């Protein structure tokens, strides 16, 4: 009985009623410790607009560089804006921020030593050892001494490189120093594939020219780049980068073209067992030989096998002019003659 009275007394106390009606936690649970890395704090006035934070951020949508509109007093300020819905609070942006004092502040970790400050870039500078003539002009030109010679090879130290591009200008050999895009590799692949497929179809469509081509003869076409640039921009919206990738790819491109003259074919089916990828098959219902273009390696074995010269084999090379016109040169293959001799 006494315990029941005690219970009623306990419930009737004002303190109990207060806590029951206004439930709340102790305030200390929402206290963050001193080293807690919260969302980065932006000090707009120190920003130099280098973009190191946007490039270094592991989360793709977290940081955007914005620029205020120009006013009468002067040019608008450039500064990073953090989107809390995408920021993962890693504090890497504060780590790479090169300004002093820091534009971005996040926790304690930006107080580390300057040698760990890395400015990532969209491009990575690489020396092609095969083409490099070891003139060492880039070594002298580099402002941060990122390029050095190790074991007879010129090497770029990626940790020191600030992606200024001076070495690229001073290099006397075309292609020895490369500025490779490291972002969106998948898009780059698609872009190159688009160029190759378009050019191959373009040449294949000129059937008559190809079939009437003499031995040692050449075919030349000019293809304006504007015909594929719309498709290219769908894959890679930045026109400058897209053009550069296409130019690099097309200049080095060598496409092998297979022309298949169906009228001449006698259905001997000799080419079918020879194909290494089994892409040639005989369609009995339609009484024709079918070649699966997507699986074909363009290896020329069928061309060398065919006794009726149904299959013709050409080699096409390309060069690009001012980023507007692609020059195409097509040459017939002379593989068969070599075998006969």
């Amino acid at each position, binding site marked *: 009985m006494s315990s029941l009275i005690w219970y009623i007394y306990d419930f009737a106390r004002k303190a109990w009623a207060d806590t029951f009606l206004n439930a709340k936690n102790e305030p200390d649970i929402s206290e963050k*410790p001193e080293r807690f890395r919260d969302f980065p704090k932006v000090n707009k006035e120190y920003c130099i607009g280098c973009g190191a934070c946007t490039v270094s951020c*592991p989360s793709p949508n977290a940081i955007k560089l914005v620029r205020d509109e120009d006013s009468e007093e002067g040019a608008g300020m450039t500064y990073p804006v953090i989107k809390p819905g995408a920021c993962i*609070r890693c504090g*890497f942006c504060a780590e790479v921020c090169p300004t002093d004092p820091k534009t971005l502040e996040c926790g304690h*970790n930006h107080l580390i030593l300057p040698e760990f400050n890395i400015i990532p870039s969209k491009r*990575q500078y690489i020396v092609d050892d095969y083409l490099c003539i070891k003139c060492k002009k880039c070594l002298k030109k580099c402002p941060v001494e990122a390029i050095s010679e190790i074991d007879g090879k010129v090497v770029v130290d990626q940790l020191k490189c600030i992606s200024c591009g001076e070495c690229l200008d001073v290099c006397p050999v075309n292609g020895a120093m490369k500025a490779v895009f490291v972002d969106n590799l998948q898009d780059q692949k698609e872009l190159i594939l688009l160029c190759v497929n378009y050019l191959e179809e373009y040449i294949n469509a000129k059937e008559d020219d190809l079939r009437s081509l003499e031995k040692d003869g050449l075919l030349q076409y000019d293809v304006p780049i504007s015909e594929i640039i719309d498709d290219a921009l769908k894959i890679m919206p930045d026109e400058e980068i897209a053009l550069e990738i296409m130019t690099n790819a097309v200049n080095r491109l060598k496409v092998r073209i297979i022309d298949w003259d169906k009228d001449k074919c006698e259905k001997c089916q000799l080419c079918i067992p020879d194909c290494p990828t089994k892409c040639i098959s005989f369609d009995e219902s339609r009484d024709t030989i079918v070649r699966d273009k997507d699986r074909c390696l363009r290896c020329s074995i069928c061309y060398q096998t065919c006794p009726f010269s149904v299959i013709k084999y050409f080699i096409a090379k390309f060069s690009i002019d001012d980023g507007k016109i692609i020059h195409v040169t097509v040459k017939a293959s002379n593989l068969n003659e070599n075998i006969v001799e």
Partner: protein
Amino acid sequence: MIVPIGPIHPALKEPIRLKLQTEGERVVKAEIEYGYVHRGIEKIIEGKTWQKGIYLSERVCGICSYEHTQTFAETIEQISDVDVPVRAQFLRVIANELDRIQSHLLGNSTFFKSMDHETLFMHVLELREYAMDSIELLTGNRVNMGWNVVGGVRMDADERHFNKILKNLDIIEEGFERTRQLFAEGPALALRCKGIGVMTKKEAIKGRAVGPIGRASGITKDFRNGHYTYDDYFDFKVITRTEGDNYARTLTRFDEIPESISILRQAIENIPKGEVRTPVDLKSGYAMRQNEAPRGEVTYMIETNGSLIKNISIRTPSIANMDSCARYMIRDVPTVADAVATYATSDPCVACAERVAITNEAGITSIKKFDEVI
């Protein structure tokens, strides 16, 4: 009859589908369907620098996120021949053991929740908060710590931090004794745990069970033996049991906590002075490293070309543990409730386990069951 459980179900914390085949009340067979949390982290990391990759590898798993960053960093250090400063190695051990304590406490509290023992669930979860406090104090974040970098750790810690961690450890140790006694000697819980979901040593080897789940069945492997820091500076005992039932698995996790606390005390007592981070000269190459995460062995295989990661493959402990749980533990279990509790003792972490995806010819990504892949 087949009883499907999940992907969203009161008994489960993470999306997964358990299919239990029952005969009357007994559960005779179980099957697990994966594929609800596959995000393709390995593919995202490919072609990125380690500075970005280390934050991505952290998000493989939210519970044992620490060990993933440490293994990632150690793999790249192995490729580049970097010697990490000893103070940084000690700080890594401190964070690792705190992470192990919180993960084991969470695993056990989830088991008690699935057994509907709310009291122990609350007690254990309250203890875990002290471990989380220490982690947040040391690294600046509670779950995804962002604490490891290649060549060391990001921040130094001083006496104040260590004293607070030691104070928290005392609280954990005191509460731990009580909760362990409540579990091990309480008649109600022990009756429901002993002899349920038995996995013998032979089956554990066959099912490739790792970590506390394997050790509860008699496997003695612990990847902390063989790690350079633990070998050189720390003494600890590997906890093994032989029963292989729910009781043994829960007690193995409980008994590893005092070992972790003793490692932490050794680390804080003997920590040398010096640098915590060293500059790294990245080299290209390939390396593989295995480490002991709270749930067992984590393996990273990384191929780099100087600054970029060309190829990465991650093996997590949960995939082996969950598979051996479905094959051997839930085999002849008295009730469906016990089957769910058995699933919870295997300490499943679905986000870890979602590593396998297969693309068919039409280009559609389909995630297959582990059985079909092997």
